[in-house]
């Protein structure tokens, strides 16, 4: 059955992926998991339009998706659509009577809301539009607070290019019965500005929920974050009922926080969520899991350190790894309070370790959801993501962070178990990937690409006409 799926107009690249994940979670397609949904656009709408049609098998699934989704505003049973109000009226009249009448009965209560996209409709105009629907034989009572049935009149305006949004080519008016709507209080409740314990790279609440949805977090599942920090990603998973577990190499973050009432635990307590099952200090490069342990996590969600705002660390001193100092033994009397030195942990290595850890520790069908940075350079359309023979990439959604770089949320599903052969194949893949695609990610290159100075193209034009052919600066200093 086709439903009108109306999105919030944000994070456009994440919208369909989220609905598809939730559809799987709520049992769409039955056993045929991972099947893509069928989508359609209204006539003359741009793919970025907030209005989409999606094929789902029941009202229940549509309602569950809408209630849990972060980016879906509502799912509607479409009663009519038109480019003006006359067309809409014709369209509603031809919608089968037996589909309409159960919702128009005497004794029921209803509410009609008017929404617009691309322009504002004044309160008075809203009222006029609702009154204009008098041809629909509503027999019930109006109840604005708690109606049995909600209807929505949605108007997409015909606006030009000037507001920076992609144009919705034609004025379209939709009228539909709401099957399910979003929980609008969720994000304000969890927003970071009211969170007690924050780190420099705390994940914002909206994104944390999106990640939890991509990871199919539900009660009874165990979700792990190897770079837990202040726990901002796990908060999203815990909200949806999953058991959470986190590790970090920085002991001050996981153990101490900023005091007894401002630490990772308090971030969960603040929202009445069950605290993580475990927090530990461990190195993702040398994970402390017992050798026989495998397939225990249902999902791994994380935001690995890219070295832009925060860099990764791993065990072993920088000088030790380079060989500048000889290996040494920590004297026995200094062992208890010894602070082991750490070295920079490049993103390449980090992602390789992460994929291997996930391949081993995720259950079959488990999901690995993580962010991966991408440089946005005109001549460098980078769409090669890390791969692993145990995983299939099911979605990649880009979020633009600055004119220089963006991050992509990758969702991968584990389809084969981790064996020696797989480990070998993964290593080869990693080597090849490192050779061909990751030069720019090594040793602070990403940092300098993001923060390095650019050459103002106007200056080069004035100075040297030939420079216009090659506007991309050849050299960027390491420091700003």
């Amino acid at each position, binding site marked *: 059955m086709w439903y009108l799926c109306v999105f919030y107009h944000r994070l456009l690249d994440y919208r369909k992926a989220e609905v598809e994940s939730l559809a799987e979670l709520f049992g769409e397609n039955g056993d045929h998991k991972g099947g893509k949904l069928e989508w359609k656009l209204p006539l003359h709408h741009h793919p970025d339009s907030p209005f989409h049609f999606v094929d789902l098998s029941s009202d229940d699934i549509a309602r569950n998706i809408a209630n849990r989704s972060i980016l879906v505003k509502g799912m509607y049973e479409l009663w009519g659509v038109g480019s003006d109000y006359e067309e809409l009226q014709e369209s509603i009249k031809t919608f089968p009577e037996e589909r309409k009448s159960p919702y128009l009965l005497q004794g029921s209560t209803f509410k009609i809301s008017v929404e617009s996209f691309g322009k504002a409709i004044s309160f008075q105009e809203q009222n006029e539009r609702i009154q204009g629907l008098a041809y629909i034989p509503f027999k019930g009572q109006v109840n604005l607070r708690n109606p049995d049935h909600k209807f929505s009149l949605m108007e997409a305006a015909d606006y030009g290019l000037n507001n920076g949004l992609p144009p919705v080519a034609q004025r379209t008016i939709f009228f539909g019965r709401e099957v399910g709507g979003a929980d609008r209080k969720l994000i304000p409740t969890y927003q970071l500005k009211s969170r007690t314990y924050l780190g420099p790279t705390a994940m914002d609440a909206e994104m944390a929920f999106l990640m939890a949805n991509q990871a199919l977090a539900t009660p009874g599942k165990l979700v792990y974050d190897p770079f837990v920090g202040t726990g901002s990603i796990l908060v999203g998973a815990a909200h949806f009922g999953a058991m959470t577990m986190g590790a970090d190499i920085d002991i001050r973050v996981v153990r101490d926080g900023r005091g007894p009432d401002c630490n990772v635990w308090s971030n969960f307590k603040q929202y009445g969520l*069950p605290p993580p099952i*475990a927090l530990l200090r461990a190195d993702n490069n040398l994970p402390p899991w017992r050798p026989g342990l495998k397939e*225990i996590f249902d999902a791994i969600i994380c935001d690995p350190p890219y070295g832009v705002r925060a860099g990764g660390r791993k065990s072993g001193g920088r000088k030790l790894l380079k060989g500048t100092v000889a290996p040494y033994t920590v004297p026995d009397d200094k062992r208890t309070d010894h602070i082991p030195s750490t070295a920079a942990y490049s993103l390449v290595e980090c992602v390789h370790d992460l994929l291997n850890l996930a391949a081993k520790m995720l259950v079959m069908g488990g999901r690995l959801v993580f962010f991966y940075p991408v440089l946005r350079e005109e001549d460098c359309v980078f769409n090669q993501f890390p791969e692993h023979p145990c995983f299939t990439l099911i979605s990649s959604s880009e979020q633009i962070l600055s004119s220089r770089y963006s991050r992509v949320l990758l969702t991968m599903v584990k389809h084969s178990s981790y064996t020696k052969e797989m480990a070998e194949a993964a290593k080869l893949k990693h080597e090849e990937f490192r050779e061909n695609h990751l030069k720019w990610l090594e040793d602070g290159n990403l940092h300098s690409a993001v923060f390095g100075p650019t050459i103002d193209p106007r200056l080069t034009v004035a100075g040297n006409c030939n420079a216009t052919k090659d506007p991309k600066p050849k050299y960027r200093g390491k420091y700003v």
Partner: protein
Amino acid sequence: MRLLTHNMLSSNIKGVVNGFPLRIEVEKVVEKQVDFNPDFLKNMFSKIEWKPLVDASRAMGYAELPEEAESSMLDSHDFLQRFHHALLELHLEEGALICPETARRFPVNKGIPNLLLHEDEV
């Protein structure tokens, strides 16, 4: 640190072959209530090493777990309750985990086990 975590961890010092199970040195045990979720427990049961869990729970002062366990016991509510208590509610607040081979002490402070290795152990 809960015993579920203990059951997953081993000492990964370079050269150590059998770093599991880590011996528990108890200074302070607290009990923290966790919502009872039978599905989660059934799910975890197959992944847990039973003997180390029994030993660990004894070390923490809880001796109600049977010496041997098999999946048929998961139908018993009483068993699930005990398993739940041992696995998720016993919490080592202060103490240490000791590597069975090298006797290296991994401290546990404020409930957080510190498994980071020293330079000469990687």
